[in-house]
C-alpha cells in the first residue's frame, strides 16, 4: 500500500521529472532528470515537510536513491528521539 510519505515525496519529485511516471523503487539519480539544484531542494523539502534536520551522517546515497529508500529513511528518522 502506498503511504502518505511516498505520495508526498512523489508529488514533490515528479515536479523535476515532468512527463515521467516515477516508480517507487526507481533510482532518481540514475534517471538523468534531476539538476544541480535538486539535491538542496530535496533536503529542504524533507526537512520542512517531515520536521527534522538532515545532517552529514544522513547523506548516504542509499537514503535518497528512490522513493522507497527515502520513505524508509524518513520513517527511521521520525522514530528517533530528537537529539540535543
Amino acid at each position, binding site marked *: 500500500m502506498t503511504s502518505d510519505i511516498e505520495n508526498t515525496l512523489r508529488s*514533490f519529485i515528479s*515536479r*523535476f521529472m*515532468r512527463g515521467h511516471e516515477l516508480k517507487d523503487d526507481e533510482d532518481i539519480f540514475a534517471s538523468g532528470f534531476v*539538476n*544541480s*539544484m535538486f*539535491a*538542496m*531542494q*530535496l*533536503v*529542504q*523539502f524533507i*526537512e*520542512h515537510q517531515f520536521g527534522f534536520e538532515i545532517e*552529514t551522517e544522513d*547523506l548516504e546515497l542509499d537514503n535518497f536513491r528512490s522513493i522507497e529508500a527515502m520513505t524508509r529513511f524518513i520513517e527511521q528518522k521520525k522514530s528517533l528521539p530528537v537529539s540535543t
Partner: protein
Amino acid sequence: MRIELTTEQQENQAAFRAFVNREIVPYADSWDREERTPPEVISQLARTGYLGALIPVESGGKGFDMISYGLLNEEIGRGCSSLRNLLTVHCMVSQAILKWGTKNQRNYWLPKLAAGEAIAAFGLTEPNVGSDAKSLEATANLSGDSYILNGQKVWTTYGQVANLFLVFAQCEGRPTAFLVERDSPGFTVKPITGMLGVRASMLAELFMNDCRIPKDNLVGRVGLGVSHVSSYALDYGRYSVAWGCVGIGQACLEACLQYASERKQFGVYLNEHQLIQQMLTEMITNLDAARLLCFQAGYLKDIGDPRSIMETTIAKYFASTMVTKVANDAVQIHGANGCSSKYRVQRYLRDSKIMEIVEGSTQIQQMTIARYAYQYFTPVREPAPTR
C-alpha cells in the same frame, strides 16, 4: 497577508542604518580608492557582532532571522559593497559549517567566526572553472591522517586577510569541500588588484602546492562538495547579494533625489524635468519590486520552505539586473559629475556590475529560473482548433 517588519526587525534596521551612516558611508570612497579595507574597520564590524549574524546565540552569534539578516545586507550594501561582500562570504562559510560541519568543526569554528576572531573566505572559482563548478581542477588526496591539496583558486573575496578558507577540490574524482587554515603548509595567497568594482574586497589568488591539512577538515562527505556544501553556501550568498543590490539601489536613489533637488538646468531643478522624473520613477518602482522579492525569499527561508532556493535565485537575478540599470541612470542624472570620483554614483555603477557576475551570473540564473518554471507550473495545453 501582512508585509511589515516586527518591532525587533525595525529596531535592528535602525541600529544597522545608524552604524552604516556613522562608520561606513563617510569612508567607503577612500577604501575603494585605496583598494583595501582597513583592519580596524573589520574589527569594528566584528565588535558589532554582525559577522555572527546567522550563527546561533549559543555559539556566540546574533541568531538573526533571515529578514533581519537581509536588512543588514541592505544597509551595509548601501554604504559599501566591499564590506557587504565580507559579510556575504563570511556568513556563507559559517552557514556551510553550521549545516554540514562536524560537531568538532562547529564547536571550534563557529564561536571564532561569530566573534570575528577568524575571517572566512570561499575558495570555489579557479582560473579555468567558473560557473561549471563540478569541473574543478584542484585535487585532494588522502595520505595517512591528512589530505594533500593541489591547485589554484582565483577571485577569492577577502582572501588577502582571511584566516579560514572553505576550499573545493576533486577527491576520488568527485567535488569535495575542505577547511584550509591560512597557515597550512603549502598554502600561499597572492593579492589581486585593479578590479572594476568592489575594489576594497581584497581579492586574492590561492595556491595549494602539496598543501597538507588534517583529515578531519573534510566538510560534509566526499563527493558532496558542490551538490550540498557549496549549493547551500551559495544560496545564502545569493540572498546576501540580492539584498546588497537593494542597498546599492537605495544609495543611488538617495543620491539622485538630493542631486536632482539641488542642481538647476534651464532655470528649474532637475527633478522638475520630466525625463529625470521618468528615471526616478523607474528607479523607485524597480527598487520596491526587488525589495519585495527579497522579503519573499527571506520569509520562505525563515519558514524552511524549499521554494526559498529558487525564489532567492529570482530575487538575486532581478535585484542584480535592476541595480545595474539603476546605477547607470544614477550616473546619467549626475551627468559629468557622476563620472567623477567626487560623486559616489560612479562607485555604485562599478560595484553594481559585479553583482551580475558573482554567486551565479545573470545568464546562469536565467537558465535556472526557466527550468524552475517547469517544476512549479504545469503548461496548459491549448485545445486543438476546430474546423
